[in-house]
């Protein structure tokens, strides 16, 4: 009995591995909007920047490409396969990030995160496979690792999960409504609607790559990150790249909250590296005017504060974008 029950499922590993197709919609959207400034980031961007306020302040067409739960691997794919494909390409791309995200290529690159990267992948993307590591899900404990090793069927599992979602949609909506329901679900459960003090984003990352790894050495890690290829693409396409490090939720007294004590040294090295490559860095982490009152859940900005934050953001980054000068 045990041999049959444990042995037969091993056959599941045979057969083609399914993958989500490339999504053309962001390409079409950018073609339609023809923005001069594109912002890329995760929920830090989604909860901070109000696109209409930014358009008004900058007087330019701006597009916000926020993907909650994303990190540098997906930003690289967005830049390479979406933004850089525009003719003409946007003048400036601003990437909002936290902590060490730029030099942690495996951060949010497995499991569900990996699935959300696939619609931005054109074909095999060998660089992503090389830098972001295994395409599989990071095991949830030793037992899970053993099960994954014995039964490498995670992709089939993801496909089965997708089918359950698809059946659920089929039962309640027509295919024309799928996208609308999906998009509305993203808004409903998005970071703007989280309870204060709840950080679902961070909870999901239990066991995955930490944002503040001990002993993270910029010089040693940057060569293995997505930064060099991102800078290369920007150089080729004549795009000005601006990296904006957001301030993580400060303590009530205004002092740094989650920031690692070694952040200062990291930022110095990062700034030097970027400026040498012709890109810019704006470091918000020590800005005194970004106070705790701005924040909603975790490091997210509260929805009501987004217009005010957007103004603050543009005051800081606007001159940098317009003049191309360093701060």
């Amino acid at each position, binding site marked *: 009995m045990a041999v049959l*029950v444990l042995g037969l499922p091993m056959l599941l590993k045979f057969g083609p591995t399914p993958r989500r197709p490339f999504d053309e919609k962001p390409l079409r959207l950018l073609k339609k909007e023809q923005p001069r400034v594109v912002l890329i980031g995760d929920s830090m961007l989604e909860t901070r920047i109000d696109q209409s306020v930014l358009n008004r302040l900058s007087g330019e067409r701006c597009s916000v490409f926020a993907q909650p739960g994303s990190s540098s691997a997906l930003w690289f794919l967005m830049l390479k396969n979406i933004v850089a494909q525009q003719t003409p390409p946007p003048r400036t791309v601003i990437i909002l990030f936290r902590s060490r995200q730029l030099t942690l290529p495996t951060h949010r690159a497995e*499991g569900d995160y990996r699935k959300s990267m696939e619609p931005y992948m054109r074909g095999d993307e060998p660089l992503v496979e090389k830098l972001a590591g295994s395409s599989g*899900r990071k095991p949830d404990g030793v037992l899970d690792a053993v099960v994954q090793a014995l039964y490498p069927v995670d992709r*089939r599992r993801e496909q089965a999960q997708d089918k359950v979602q698809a059946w659920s949609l089929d039962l309640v909506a027509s295919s024309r*409504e799928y996208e609308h329901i999906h998009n509305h679900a993203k808004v*409903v459960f998005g970071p703007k609607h989280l*309870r204060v003090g709840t950080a679902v984003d961070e909870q999901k990352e239990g066991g995955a790559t930490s944002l503040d790894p001990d002993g993270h050495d910029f010089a040693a890690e940057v060569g293995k990150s997505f930064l060099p290829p991102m800078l290369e693409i920007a150089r080729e396409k004549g795009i000005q790249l601006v990296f904006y490090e957001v301030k993580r939720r400060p303590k009530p007294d205004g002092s740094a909250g989650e920031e690692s004590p070694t952040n200062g040294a990291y930022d110095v090295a990062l700034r030097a590296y970027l400026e040498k490559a012709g890109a810019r860095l704006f470091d918000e982490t020590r800005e005194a005017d970004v106070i705790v009152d701005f924040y909603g859940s975790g490091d997210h900005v509260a929805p009501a504060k987004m217009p005010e934050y957007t103004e603050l953001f543009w005051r800081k980054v606007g001159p940098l974008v317009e003049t191309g000068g360093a701060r």
Partner: protein
Amino acid sequence: MIFHSLHFVVFLIVVLAIYWGSPARWRNFLLVPASIVFYGFVHPWFLLPFAATTIIDYFVARGIESHPDRTRALVTVSVVSNLGLLGVFKYYNFFVENAAALLTSLHIPVSLPVLNVVLPAGISFYTFQSIGYVVDVSRGHVRACHSFRDYALFVSFFPQLVAGPIQRAGHLLTQIQSPRTVNAGIVGEALVLIAWGFFKKLVIADNVAITANKVFAMQDPSFAILWTGVLAFCIQIFADFSAYTDIARGTARLFGFDLSPNFNHPYLADSPSDFWRRWHISLSTWIRDYIFIPLGGSRQSESRTIINLVIVFLLTGLWHGASWNFVLWGLYYAVLTIIYRAAAAIVPKTLQTLPGLRLGQIALMFLFTNLGWFIFREHDVHHLWRGLTLSPAATPAADWRVAAYLTTMTALFALPIVLHMIWDLLLRPRLESTRAWPRLAWPVATLLSLVLFVGILLLRSDTTQDFIYFQF
């Protein structure tokens, strides 16, 4: 140690091999240290309060047997020491925080010390099991156990130590004191039970938990979204808790023990009292036998019955945790039970036997159960009040579509529970009554285990969570 870990898989295989490879007289002796390793694996200090309960109640029961005239005093010693442990670890901070809040509101600012320790896992389960034993001895229902080893195994038996089912001495201790055997049929049943338990946990509970957790993390969900989350939690908590019970019962069977069941299709209940006969049966029967009946049960005046119901349901709520929402949850079931009792007395008997009425009653009770789970899950009183006063009319149309989608997904994940009901209530009794069953049992067990295992591999959630009842 938790069931869904490699440590447990290795531990179980090793303990089973040594257990069945040892002479019968050594087996109880082996299971005690095995249970200690299981329980103290992560937090060895958990063994201290556990040892205190075991030692005190062992000697209290022996004392009751040798000094029947001191029974009352000795039972008091057991109850006070067990509830004292529960009070310190589980309720101390709750009472201190509320006392401080009350005094502050009376303009008497105080700063009371709080206890910063982890609640020992399973403390609510093993203390109740041990108190039950002492009371049973005092009532003459069972004889005091003379072997400390056997008694220690009764309290510590690892499959049910952390989250039940709470066992009675007359059921488990008797088995511990008797020789045990297993055969292919029992092993087959045990493996199906374990596979079904893991399927419920990893596929059903952990998948619907994604929706429930997202909804309960929201600041201001609309009516439709909120109740979608509540429904998801309703499925999650049943799948999660009954999964633990099934794995515990299946594991116990591999050692030759039969643990009492804890669930009997609770969402088929047609009234609150019926629900509590089907949900967490080992706790509800414990409370009935050791609290409700000694208080006079329902055989006294109506007003006294109502008071008794309020007391037992408040205690049931508090047993789950030191938080006001659990108190409210208990009170909710007390009020619901009282209303149902009153309705049963008013509605004519002819109406109560109308065809199809039971289906309606089940549906209505399911709605009430969901309302109860909302109170149970929502720890924040402001959000609780907001949720209870939400109007469905205020839900945006787009939210209804998302809610319908998520509810359908929850229903799809819950489908195996419905299939299990059909199997358990309709198919299995028919199959088991056929003469071919002895020949079919083994292939059916193999096929079911295979289907469940493939289901686990292909449908389990990305992330797994601790069993909900570990926190109690």
